Every structure is written in C-alpha cells, then in structure tokens.
C-alpha cells in the first residue's frame, strides 16, 4: 500500500516484536512485555494478534483469519482485508491451505500441522486477573509459580456447584511451569493446545504482552484427580453436516424456542458437507 511498509509496521518495530516472540517461545507460557504500537484498528479488535501476524508474515504466506470460528464474521473480514491491503498476501478460508491463521476465540477443528502458525488475539493475558487485579502482584506470583489462588478458586467452584464453572478462557499450565490464559476459546478447544504440532503465538495489544507455546509442548487444563477437566459442548450433532466432534453454535430459528446447532468452524462444516456429510437440518441442495 502506498505510503506504508509491507504489512503496515516498520521493520524496526517488527524486529522488536520478533525478539519478544523469540523470548516467548523460549519460555513457554510466560508473558513477555513488548512495545505494543497503536494500530489503525481499535484495542479489543485484535491489535495484539495483528501486530504478531504483521511481524511474522512473509510475501509467500497464505493467511486465514477467523473470528468465532468463522471466516466471514465482520471482524475477520476486516482483518483479512487489512493484510490483503497492506501486505498483499494471499488469503484463504481453508484451514489446510493456510500457513498463518489468526484467530479470535476458536481453534480450528482440523488438526494443525508443523508448517503452520496459529496467532491468537488475546484480550486479557493475565490468567489471574479476576483473582488478583494488581499486575505487580501477579508478576510475583508467576515468578514463584504461586498458583494456589487459582486452585482455591477451582476448589470453591466444586464445593459450591459440584463442578468447575469456567466454560471458556479456562486456565492452562504450560510445560508444567507457567499458568496461562488460552484466550477466550471455549474450554472445548483446550485439549487441542496440548502437543499441538503448530507453533502457537499469543498477542495482547492493549495489555502489551506476547506469549507463546512452541510445537509439541505439554498444555494441561487445570483440574483435580477426582474432578478431571471436562469440555463443554452442546450434546448433539451439527444440524448441517452431522459432525459429532465439532464445537457447535446455537442458532435461534424462531420465537417458539426453535434452535439449530451448527458447527462454529465454518470451513470444517463446509468441507464436510462438500464430502457428502449431511445433518438432520440440512437441505439436500445445501450440501452441494
């Protein structure tokens, strides 16, 4: 784009971000402060993810952007356009074709590969912030691996509700050391982070933190031996493609309580339908 560097950020800034990324990869799950820049999109819209993507993007990359699992939600469209415009890179909606996937709130259903990088947009990198608002304190707690507060919170949940009541942004322990926010993905997606072949990068623009999970790293959702981690999902197959192992969105179809459950991952659903799978609510032509 005229008047702007490749992928918007200047090269010095990209280098600074890449240095933070290298440090983050070297200390899995540790939050690295970085000189987050003001971006032309608002804070909360994915400025951290955008800066990370801008710093790792090369001319030959193929970019996929999803929000809520879908490629065509407005924010995903807007970010994809931003990079198409400022970097001129190829974009795709197909998970398998992408080399870089920027996401908000989901991990694609299809298992990612070693030659792919997933970039998460992170609103609040501090997993302890609801329990301890001061970042001076939480920094100390991380340095001492003092996570008793979180275990007490989970224990209190069990005492009160008979189960852990966190359904998204479910805290994980990375490489048996750092407590980490997986970003507000549904707990359903947490197991995908464990031993993922792809590099996972996390950018929090407003909070000015970067963190990472290198490929093939242990990521454990916090739980107790007698109360093992359980993912939450609607107990039914996708109405369009019949998938039983995909995270489902609930769509309100009328004002009489009508509901349709469909794959949140639109690419996954479309590919399944293209392969001939059909759910109970799909029109025959919709599968074509």
């Amino acid at each position, binding site marked *: 784009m005229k008047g*702007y*560097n490749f992928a918007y950020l*200047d090269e010095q800034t990209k280098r600074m971000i890449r240095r933070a990324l290298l440090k983050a990869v070297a200390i899995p799950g540790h939050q690295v*402060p*970085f*000189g*987050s*820049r*003001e*971006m032309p999109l*608002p*804070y*909360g*819209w994915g*400025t951290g993810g955008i800066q990370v993507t801008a710093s790792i993007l090369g001319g030959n990359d193929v970019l996929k952007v999803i929000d*809520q699992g879908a490629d*065509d939600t*407005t*924010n*995903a*469209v*807007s970010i994809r356009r931003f990079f198409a415009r400022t970097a001129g890179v190829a974009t795709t909606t197909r998970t398998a074709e992408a080399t870089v996937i920027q996401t908000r*709130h*989901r991990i694609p259903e299809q298992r990612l590969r070693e030659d792919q990088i997933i970039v998460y947009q992170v*609103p609040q990198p501090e997993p302890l912030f609801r329990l301890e608002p*001061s*970042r*001076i304190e939480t920094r100390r707690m991380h340095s001492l691996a003092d996570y008793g507060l979180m275990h007490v919170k989970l224990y209190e949940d069990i005492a009160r*509700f*008979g*189960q852990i*009541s966190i*359904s*998204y942004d479910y805290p994980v322990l990375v490489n048996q050391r750092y407590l980490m926010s997986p970003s*507000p*993905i*549904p*707990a*359903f997606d947490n197991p995908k982070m464990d031993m993922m072949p792809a590099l996972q990068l996390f950018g929090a623009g*407003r909070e*000015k*933190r970067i963190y990472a999970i290198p490929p093939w790293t242990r990521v454990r959702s916090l739980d107790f031996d007698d109360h093992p981690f359980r993912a*939450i*999902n*609607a107990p039914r197959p996708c*109405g*369009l493609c019949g998938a039983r192992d995909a*995270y*489902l*969105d*609930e*769509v309100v*179809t009328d004002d009489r309580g*009508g509901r*349709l459950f*469909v794959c*949140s991952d639109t690419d996954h*659903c479309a590919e399944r339908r293209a392969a001939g799978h059909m759910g109970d*609510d*799909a029109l025959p032509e919709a599968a074509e």
Partner: protein
Amino acid sequence: MAYVAVKGGERAIDNAHAWLAEERRGDPAVPELSLPQITEQLGRSVDRAMGEGSLYDRELAALAIKQAQGDLIEAAFLLRAYRTTLPRFAHSRPVETSAMRIARRVSAIFKDLPGGQVLGPTYDYTHRLLDFGLADAAAVPAMASVAPEDDAMPLVPDILGQEGLLEADGAGGDDPGDLTREPLSFPASRDVRLQALARGDEGFLLGLGYSTQRGYGGSHPFAGEIRMGLVTVEIEPPELGFAIDIGEIVVTECQMVNQFKGSKTVPPQFTRGYGLVFGFSERKAMAMALVDRAMRAAELGEDVTAPAQDVEFVLYHSDNIEATGFVEHLKLPHYVDFQSELQNVRRLRTEVARMAEAAE
C-alpha cells in the same frame, strides 16, 4: 428446517462504510467543512485531539476531527494510528516554559507577582448565556490592541523555591521513558507517569482530580501558576553538536502547589503537582497536576487509600484509546463463548435440580 449459515460480512461492511461516508457529509446543500475552518474555529477540539492523540499537527488534527464527525476520541485514535507509522528522527530538548511567549498566565497564590496576571482568551469570566448573535455570522468586536507580554515572567515555583518553601524539582538527567515504545512497567517513574497523564483522557483525569478534592486522597492543592503560550522546540542533532530551533508549539502548563506536613527527614514544605498539555487545555492540565500529585503519595510517605493515588489503577485506565477499544469490543461477536456459557448454565441447573431431588 431451511437454514443457511449467516453470510455477507463483506458486503455489509462495504455498505456500512458507504452509509457512514454519506452521513459524514450530511446534506450536500450545506457547504462542506474545510480544514482551516476547523483549525480556526474549533481550536479547542483541535487541541484536545492533538493532546490525546499525542501528535502536534493542527492540520492533521482538523482532518481527523472532520473524518470522525467531531468525535474527539475517534479523532485522537486516528492521529495515534497515523503517528505510530512515522519515523522518529530525534528527541527534542526539554522545552523551556520559563521562556514561554505568554498568552495567559495566572497565579492563584499571589495577588500580584513579577510579570503580573494575564488573563488571555479565557472563558473564566464569561457569563454562560447562549449568544444568539453567534447563530448568524456576527462581526467580531475589535480587540483593544495590547502590547505583547515582553516582561520576564518567572515561574511561580521558582519564586517559592528561593525560600526553600517548595520541594526542589527532580534532577531530570536521564532520557525520559516513552510509553509509545516501551510497555508500562512498575514501579513507573514520574516521567512515564506524566507522559501517560498528558496522553490520558481529559474526562477521566478530571473525575480523578475532582475526587482528590472531595476527600479521596486530598493534598490541599493551590494553583501556583497556570501559563499558556508558545514555546520553542529544539533538537540537537549529534552531528551538529548544538541545538537548532525546529518550530513553536502552544502548550498549557499547570504548577500545582500542595501542602506537605513534612517527615522525619524533611521539614514541612510545599510539594509539586505538574501538568503539561498540548494547546490551550487548561482543564486537562489542572486535572493532570492534581492526579500527578496524588500519585506521589507513596513516595512522600502518605497513606495510599484512594483511586487517584493508586499508580497502577490510574495508569492502566487513563488512556481513552485503550479504554474505548476494550469497552466497545463487547459489541463484537462473542457467541462461541456465550454458547459455552449457555451449556454451562444448563449443566449447572441440571446439577442443582438433581441435588434438590436427592435432598427430598
């Protein structure tokens, strides 16, 4: 059941942008705003956008205000997003406000003082009566010509300092921190705190400053001096070895003087709260000075009990570009998370029902 997943994000965005452009222009029968009209006639808006946008450029600020339909936070946001792309050639030398070409200078602590009190173009003593004459293009009454203020105007804190009644100013020295390059870390030094305040939201600082006056971390402030006018900006290129003048900017400076009862090592004296803002932005400069002083509570051995004294609280929440982004991001879709919460609440309710049944 016929259902096709929601599509059309691309077209919806294009249409929304087109509608926005049309709304921004308004009725085409009404003449379009020009940038000089904004810089000349909406100067206080320009000042605020420049201050919170951290970019001193009246013309770009006017453009941002026009583009944002007068939404000043949106305008500051546009300026920030632009300034972040600009290469940085040099840091200026510290601006000498003691050498300011004064347009306004008042002190609330001395009835008269060297250089005198200069009201300048202030609203302070206007009666807030809507002037219906302004609704039509009215001729501006000619201002009686005044001689420029050439008299030396010493800084009021320097006058107090001579007697040792006011704490000495910080030594300065090291290069100041820069929040736009380095993330905030704690303890945050005063230079960084002041930068955050100078960029901070006027309304937020006003509320916080006000809270200190109502008992939440009070520090008995007096407006030692407020001055507004032109200051020279100089840079010192290393290859030259001497400073060169690169232009003038308008700034408003507020030196707040606050009571301090003294400590074991320091006798009773007055302490400083400092505010400096681009343009004519007196409300912001004063609020900034109150909050700056409040945030020094811990350093001065005072109890830290009020929001304005909590450095971390103030610094993390004063930036309106960060705040507006995160507050407004709630309108982005969250249906994936909400879906898991729906299932969660259903599951919790099932469990409650089961427990109630078991109890019967």
